[in-house]
């Protein structure tokens, strides 16, 4: 890996602020571009513009901030949170910031410790102090100009941090079972203490005083969802059910159905005559709804049955 831990092909963002001398910024950009190769992989952002730019999350491998020689950029929690957002999981941020050695009256400049916690609070992990160096006279002057601090207990600290290796919103299951050495059946054997407690409790089934868990707490948002109505329909749903013709159909329904169906995948429903009962009658049988009757028995349809149901 090259300087700044940047490798070819990576996407890098360089964050600068008004305290960075323009030539120095350009110099850094060129250097980094040389490291990653061409193809516009280097983005340059002003620290105030970064939130507005709204880069796509997890788009950068490395972010360099305040790294321009002479920069006195300060990093707030909000800025660092944005940095964490646009970093890829496992991506790295490298930054420099002036710090005071003791927390003094000037609250604007952080101590090293405070800066480290600021990174952690923004969601970065493996926050490490890489080095501290004293300020050059130009840098000291720059601090005086931009931050209005005159004391001579300043240091420039270089810190790196990483975005954790998982994405926001990802989940993983906690293994809650406490694996014991398996018994002969290949399963963990029951802890005798647990077995005893269980048995004792079970022998006390009528004890109304026992403390109970709230079973509702077991349910999560998935459980509370209702099934999708489209999933409740039968695959081959027809409004009135399949129409079947009798075995020796005389009303013409059989011919109609023959023309409709192409393949003979219709279930072999052996259909007898109307006297056999609803189980065997076809859909247009006038005796539907009446019980089976003996063959030869004359059944008169009652007046009310001749009307539509």
């Amino acid at each position: 890996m090259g300087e700044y831990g940047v490798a070819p092909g990576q996407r890098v963002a360089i964050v600068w602020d008004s305290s960075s001398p323009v030539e120095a910024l350009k110099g850094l950009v060129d250097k980094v571009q040389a490291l990653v190769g061409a193809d516009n992989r280097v983005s340059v952002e002003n620290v105030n513009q970064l939130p507005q730019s709204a880069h796509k999350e997890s788009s950068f491998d490395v972010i360099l901030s305040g790294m321009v020689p002479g920069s006195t950029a300060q990093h707030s929690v909000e800025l660092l949170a944005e940095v964490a957002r646009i970093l890829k999981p496992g991506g790295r941020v490298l930054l420099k910031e002036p710090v005071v050695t003791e927390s003094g009256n000037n609250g604007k400049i952080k101590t090293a410790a405070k800066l480290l916690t600021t990174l952690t609070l923004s969601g970065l992990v493996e926050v490490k102090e890489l080095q501290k160096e004293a300020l050059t006279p130009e840098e000291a002057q720059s601090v005086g100009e931009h931050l209005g601090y005159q004391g001579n207990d300043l240091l420039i600290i270089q810190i790196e941090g990483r975005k954790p290796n998982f994405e926001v919103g990802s989940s993983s299951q906690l293994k809650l079972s406490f694996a014991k050495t398996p018994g002969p059946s290949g399963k963990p054997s029951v802890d005798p203490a647990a077995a005893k407690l269980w048995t004792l409790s079970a022998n006390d089934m009528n004890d109304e005083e026992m403390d109970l868990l709230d079973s509702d707490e077991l349910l999560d948002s998935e459980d509370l969802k209702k099934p999708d109505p489209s999933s409740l329909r039968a695959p081959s749903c027809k409004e009135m059910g399949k129409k079947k013709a009798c075995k020796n159909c005389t009303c013409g329904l059989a011919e109609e159905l023959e023309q409709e169906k192409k393949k003979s995948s219709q279930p072999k429903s052996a259909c007898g005559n109307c006297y056999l009962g609803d189980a065997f009658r076809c859909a247009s049988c006038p005796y539907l709804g009446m019980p089976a009757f003996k063959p030869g028995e004359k059944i008169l349809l009652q007046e009310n049955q001749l009307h539509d149901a």
Partner: protein
Amino acid sequence: MAGRGLLVLFGSQTGTAQDTAERIGRGAKRRHLRCRVEALDSCDVANLIHEPLVVFVCATTGQGDPPDNMKMFWRFLFRKNLPAGSLCQLDYAVLGLGDSSYPKFNFVAKKLHKRLLQLGGNPLLPVALGDDQHELGPDAVVDPWLVALWDKILALYPLPPGLEIISPDVRLPPKYTLRYLPEDSPQPNSDLLQPTAPRAAPCELHPFAARVLSNRRVTAQSHFQDVRLIEFDIAGSGITFSAGDVVMIQPQNCPEDVQQFCQLLRLEPHRRFVLEPTEPGTALPPLLPQPCTVQYLVTHYLDISCVPRRSFFELLASFSTNELEREKLQEFSSAQGQEELYSYCNRPRRTTLEALWDFPHTTCAVPADYLLDLIPRIRPRAFSIASSLLAHPERMQILVAVVRYRTRLSKPRRGLCSTWLASLNPEQGDVRVPLWVKKGGMKFPADPATPVIMIGPGTGVAPFRAAIQERVALGRRGNCLFFGCRYKSKDFYCQTEWEELVTKGLLTLFTAFSRDQEEKVYVQHRIRENGRLVWELLSSGNAHVYLAG
């Protein structure tokens, strides 16, 4: 664990989960697995930690509640003191039966699955959620789930070498053999519903045979609906109840149906028999005296008026010697035939007896041994108790609307229990009804000053009648009732009772007679009209609101 075994545990309210559990049990037998099928509250829960393979079939009822026969198990399962790794030996699968039109769809199965996981169990499959709202009902989920389940189970416990899965064409042995006693054995006491000696509160296995004191129609004769106020004598039963509680009544089949059934199946009603389990360890069926007459079995036990299920057709097909009938029966038991079955049975609410009528060449060939495998037990029906012990000690009253409606079948559909109750005439002798009490979901406030707003159209008013009687006896005056029905002159039951209380200032009554005028007026209109009063009761009185019907 030596040998291959499966335990199927079910929680069933209307019998569907039990039927499905038994179906799984049969599948296990066909795969040469030892199998026990039990209700959750009947199994020895202490032993659950040693069970290697359990399938749970649980319905959700009420408002996301477990069925009655798993309530004890449910309370046990959620005890905080159960150790986390207790069920580490357990491979399990949960099948839920529910209805997605309810907000707490299949909550019991969902919670059970998660709790078992929490306790260290290992799920073989994700929880399966059968849904009544699916066009093909729960089977749409159960059928593919069963395929996956057997795959998983046979992977864990492969078939012993040399054995194949028993083909569906081969009939499994019945649960019991029915051994007829010789015709000349001594006759039993014919009155099998003797009042039992008082014991601990009556329950499903030991109902109380309550005498019917009165059975009065409370709707006008010209009204289309027949609603009865029935009073029972519960003296000496040990039964107590308060307003909001529910009575469970065990109905029986009407004599005409019993006679028709015996004729169809070539059974002699007066013959007595005993039952013997084919597999040792199977319990005898509850509530069936031994020895028993065929008449008793068909009248009190076999639910011949229920809508037959798929398993009924599957078993019936195996007896058929008639090709035409057998093919049809097999079609109804196949996965592809489910739409046909729904159209034939479920939509028109065809009864088992009516279905048997369509298959005369098969019904005459059904061995008596298989009767209890073929037809399920009659289930009890629940009614809100409509009276208070404080107003009528040693009495229990209920309001029953006789269920009667038409489908495309020419014979109208009748509710089994309501029709039977309506037919009881106390003036013709000692008429008894087996019943027991269950705690209800409604609790009325303990604080005497809290007013109560009750909204109960139609027979929904029953628990409120109990509550009002109770509260009036206790001197509580804050009673506000919104009652709705169709016609003031036809189905305004309890009219005189209410009017008397109103005169005494003990009841505020609002009525909505939906068909007495051109536009429909319902209880909700009355509530809105009297919004101010309702609001005052709620905001300054802290009123409790109840809704039933």
